[in-house]
């Protein structure tokens, strides 16, 4: 069953006279449990495509479905909830809040309201940290963790809500080779456990882990 279905997806920037087409009428599907790599040169539109799929940005035109849900017609409120419950994103630069410990960073999605986090949330966060092998460092601040560990905390945060799909925007881009490999093996392990993964990367080596590769050039899949 397809988890993502994109049809003629387009994203343009700028106004009349200086329009830049970042994603140009792309169509594809992503099945449950797939590991998809999006590769291409800088400026080819791969990060823009990832942002559209992860509901971080709105397409200019086209159709985009998550399972049977029409993401193009979702309200802002529905999109917020959708991002919180169905999908997760990790970035090249970890993006952890520096004044929260590893555990608190994992708990961040649960702190979006007035209601305090409960024991169930805490348990889920600790389990997620356990899955990425950082249970013993849960009380450390991001500054006290290595780059790889910070990326693992970001992955734990993305796993906390048990998402159907994980989007990763160059997750190894700021890591050394060895640390990058360990992050990739973690992602591969998570994929084997049934988590669909869509990853943007520059490093061809890592595409061998993918079940599908989308090569992009000038906003098109080639």
């Amino acid at each position, binding site marked *: 069953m397809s988890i993502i279905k994109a049809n003629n997806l387009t994203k343009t920037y700028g106004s009349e006279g200086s329009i830049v087409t970042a994603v140009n009428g792309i169509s594809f599907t992503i099945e449950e449990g797939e590991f998809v790599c999006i590769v291409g040169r800088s400026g080819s539109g791969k990060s823009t495509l990832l942002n559209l799929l992860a509901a*971080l940005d709105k397409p200019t035109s086209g159709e985009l479905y998550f399972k049977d849900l029409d993401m193009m017609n979702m309200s802002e409120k529905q999109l917020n909830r959708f991002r919180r419950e169905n999908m997760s994103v990790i970035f090249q630069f970890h993006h952890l809040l520096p004044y929260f410990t590893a555990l608190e960073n994992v708990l961040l999605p649960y702190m979006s309201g007035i209601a305090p986090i409960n024991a169930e949330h805490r348990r889920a966060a600790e389990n997620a940290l356990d899955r990425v092998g950082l249970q013993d460092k849960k009380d450390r601040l991001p500054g006290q963790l290595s780059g790889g560990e910070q990326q693992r905390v970001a992955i734990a945060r993305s796993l906390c809500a048990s998402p159907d799909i994980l989007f990763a925007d160059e997750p190894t881009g700021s890591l050394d080779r060895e640390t990058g490999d360990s992050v990739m093996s973690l992602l591969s392990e998570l994929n084997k456990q049934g988590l669909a993964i869509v990853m943007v990367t520059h490093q061809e080596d890592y595409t061998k882990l993918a079940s599908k590769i989308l090569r992009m050039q000038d906003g098109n899949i080639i």
Partner: protein
Amino acid sequence: MNLFTISIRNLQRRPFRAFIFSIVFVAGLTAVVGLHYVSKDIGDSMEEKLSRFGANVVILPKENNHTVSYGGVQLGSLSYSITYLNEDETINAVRTIGFKENISAVAPKLIEVANFNDTPIMLVGVDWTEELYINSMWNLLPEEVKPNVYTVAGSKSGVKEGDIIELNGSSITVDRVLSQTGDDSDNLIFTTLANLQRITGNENRVNFVEVAALCAGCPIDDIVAQISANTDAEVKALQSVVKQRMYSIEFVETLVWCIIAIILSASILMMALFMLSSVNERKKEIGIMRAVGYSKLAIFSAICAEAAILLSFSGVIGYFAGYYAGIKILSVMSIDAVARSFPVADMFATVGIAVAIAVLSSAFPAMKAARLSPAEALNRL
């Protein structure tokens, strides 16, 4: 832990900046609260002092006179009896009104025509304790007034110290001649009310009562209405006196409010700049929060809460500092502060206003933060 934990932690993360900003806001609020109390107490003090230069309410018996006219010719008013007020009842009617705290003096008067060197002269019986409160221009100290009978003459009355005035077979010795005041009192003789009442057989009777009322806390019309409700007599406000006093007091208050408005405007601007710079620095964090599902309202609330937390603490400290600074300033200016217990309710109201200002001034930066799309915020790294 909840949304506001983010606000608190962010403040803790930059303690020096939060501290500096708090100090600035505490200073602003101290100035506002201090000025407010100083102006209030100066206004009260000014009014109390002004009330020593005459009454602003007068109580008279209901008039028993008719305007006489014949053939279209006005012949003036015809008064067919002299009426008196009951002294005790009238004073009681004034002293028991709802605004009794605003009554600073009640001065009853009985007027009789006496004889001096075969010339009729106006003799006014006064209650010296009350009279000296509203007639400080006489430069007569309360301790100078003899306990039983004391008589003073106006500078233009033609009476000298030691002269004797005859009335109903009794003799009244003039103790002192007043210095010139420029008003009607220059032509009159003033003596102890009880003595004049005894000599003329008018015990407990007065012709009219002058009242000095403090108008800052209430409109004079309310005081007049309340006195009127307690007595059958006619109660009149001397509007020109009231207006003149209130103008002086309102001038001070207006000036202070202008200064307060400037301080508040500067505070709002500072707060907005502080929050704007905070938002610009935290675009990455805002992007993360939006990416993990935070709504625009949640982002807006977190930013505003940060300002509100900061100002609620500053508000409490600023209020305390302003309140006690006001007392200190008044003591330096040798003005007695109004005796009052610490106004807890006012403090909470002021802190509430400070928090409202915080939210108002951080609304624009917060809106700016909330409007950022996750992709836009994260791409600005």
